[in-house]
């Protein structure tokens, strides 16, 4: 072994020794007056829906009076590299962040693990917080984790399907196997639709590259397609629509961006609202509210969104009141 290697090893060991002695002592810090809280926001990947949540969070915090020089916001984006999540969560812990917010499940899990029951973690738009082990129950989270859940209003989606294509019998549901939220919603929708008398067929893609092939098969087998809130399907929406249009099969997606990309209609929960509510909750927690008894807020209230161009292309007649609600409160793509 050469000298340089030995030197570096000695330095690392010496540093660890010093840190070992030092970390035990410096734990206590006195909070000053006019204390400026630090908030860490951790996002899994850049993606239109997740960016909307982030925008909402900042606005929610602002509403609670945390803006400008009253707060220090550290925003980190792991760019889908899960190894980064740990480092970034640790960075927040090291800054003694008073609170952290996680956008997307892996980000939230990483924060919760690093916080280890101590500093509060606010979830923003986590589809299934109980199933992923982040909270004990939605009503009483039980520890340092709470937040907002972006639950899709599946019953309303089923209603939209009934209204748009009343004659449809065979419903295809497509989701990405690697997307926990997509899978969760797809399976719940399958149950709902089955009990409503539909003949349900499930289709999965493992990456967006599979979309072409899977969509071809699906379009030839079903009358209507439901696309849940799923990052993979959302990214490959254009491919899906190309194929379903050829086969004259309408697609009912879960969110407004997917209607814009060629879905016919949906009731869309605003991602911005999910973030906004999470921001409000974060503000409340910073002001002293206890996370253990602060219920998870599930946001299911949505607005009607329709795509008239797509409806015309497929020869569908949307009910008059549907168009009216969309024009009044929701979004209409022409």
């Amino acid at each position, binding site marked *: *072994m*050469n000298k*340089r*290697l030995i030197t*570096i*090893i000695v330095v*690392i060991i010496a*540093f*660890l020794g010093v*840190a*070992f002695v*030092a*970390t*035990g002592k410096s734990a206590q810090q006195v909070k000053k007056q006019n204390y400026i809280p630090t908030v860490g926001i951790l996002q899994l990947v*850049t993606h239109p829906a997740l960016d909307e949540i982030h925008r909402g969070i900042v606005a929610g915090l602002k509403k609670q009076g945390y803006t400008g020089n009253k707060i220090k916001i550290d925003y*980190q*984006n*792991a*760019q*889908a*590299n*899960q*190894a*980064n*999540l*740990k*480092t*970034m969560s*640790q*960075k927040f*812990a*090291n800054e003694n962040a008073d609170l952290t917010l996680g956008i997307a*499940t*892996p980000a939230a*899990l*990483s924060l*919760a*693990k690093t916080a280890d029951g101590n500093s509060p973690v606010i979830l923003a738009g986590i589809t299934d917080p109980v199933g*992923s*082990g*982040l909270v004990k129950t939605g009503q009483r989270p039980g520890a340092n984790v709470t937040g907002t859940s972006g639950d899709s209003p599946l019953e309303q989606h089923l209603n939209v399907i009934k209204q748009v294509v009343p004659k449809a019998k065979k419903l295809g549901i497509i989701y990405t*196997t*690697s*997307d*926990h939220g997509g*899978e969760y919603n797809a399976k719940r929708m399958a149950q709902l639709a089955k009990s409503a008398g539909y003949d349900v067929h499930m289709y999965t893609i*493992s990456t967006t590259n599979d979309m072409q092939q899977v969509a071809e098969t699906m379009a030839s087998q079903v009358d209507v397609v439901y696309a849940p809130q799923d990052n993979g399907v959302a990214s490959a929406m254009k491919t899906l629509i190309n194929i379903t249009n050829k086969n004259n099969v309408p697609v009912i997606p879960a969110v407004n961006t997917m209607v814009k990309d060629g879905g016919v209609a949906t009731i869309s929960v605003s991602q911005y609202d999910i973030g906004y509510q999470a921001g409000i909750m974060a503000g409340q927690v910073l002001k002293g509210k206890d996370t253990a008894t602060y219920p998870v807020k599930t946001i299911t209230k949505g607005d009607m969104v329709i795509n008239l161009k797509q409806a015309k292309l497929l020869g569908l007649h949307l009910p008059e009141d549907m168009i009216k609600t969309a024009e009044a409160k929701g979004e209409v793509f022409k």
Partner: protein
Amino acid sequence: MSIIVSSIGQGLLWAVLGVALFLTFRILNFPDMTVEGSFPLGAATAVTMISHGINPYLATLTALIIGSIAGLVTGLLYTKGKIPILLAGILVMTAALSINLRIMGSANISLLNQKSIFSSPILQHLPKNFDSVFVGFIIITIITLSLMFFLQTEIGQAFIATGDNANMAQSIGIKTDRMTIMGLMLSNGLIALGGAVIAQNNGYADINMGIGIIVIALASIIIGEVAFGDLSLNGRLVAVIVGSILYRLVLLAVLSLGFSTNDLNLISAIVLAVAMMLPQLRKALKFDTVIKKGVTKHD
């Protein structure tokens, strides 16, 4: 200070991958893409077993065995099926995604409030972040010492000879195919073990956690080599471990310099590329060698 401790801890944990990849990348001399499949495979196996109430140590060891099976498949495809090694690895890596989904039953399994190798009572008394330093140190020490011992044995020497010159090795009666398969099994078993440990440290297993793993493992090997130069085989293994720690510190430095995290992947690629080109750059910039070359040519 505690963030540096944490980075050292992460470096020690991830060093398992570096050492494991060293067996194929440096000793057998080929890039084995299987690791991007065997890493999440190990994580999936261990986390699923733990969440079903099985002892975390047993779960971690099972991950090692399952990972080595992935290596076995790549090895068979390569040696018996005559599929080029890069392709064989990619095939197994792709197949592993479906296997992992089957094992986990969903894309993400959390370990919050579950026992893991990090929740043993001794670790609870350590200062913050020292748990991963402690566990990482013990695991990597056991692995490295066993490998050092193994590489001195007759089989170990035959394994090295296979990588150095397969034809020569064959001519002195070494069954090179067997050696290659064994190397792949050992390497992927260790990678899966690393996956199991890191998943427990992170608190979850995710179907996508294998993406970019080979770069992290390569980084520790390359940084170790560039930083410490010529070493004995045992020294090189130690250099990989230190390289893994240095890589984490470099990433930490980049993050705390305030670079946009959007650029993180680009930056780690650049760090690696520069590290790999360093010997060439040094040669190109050294005037005396240039002159020497000129002189000898004219001779």
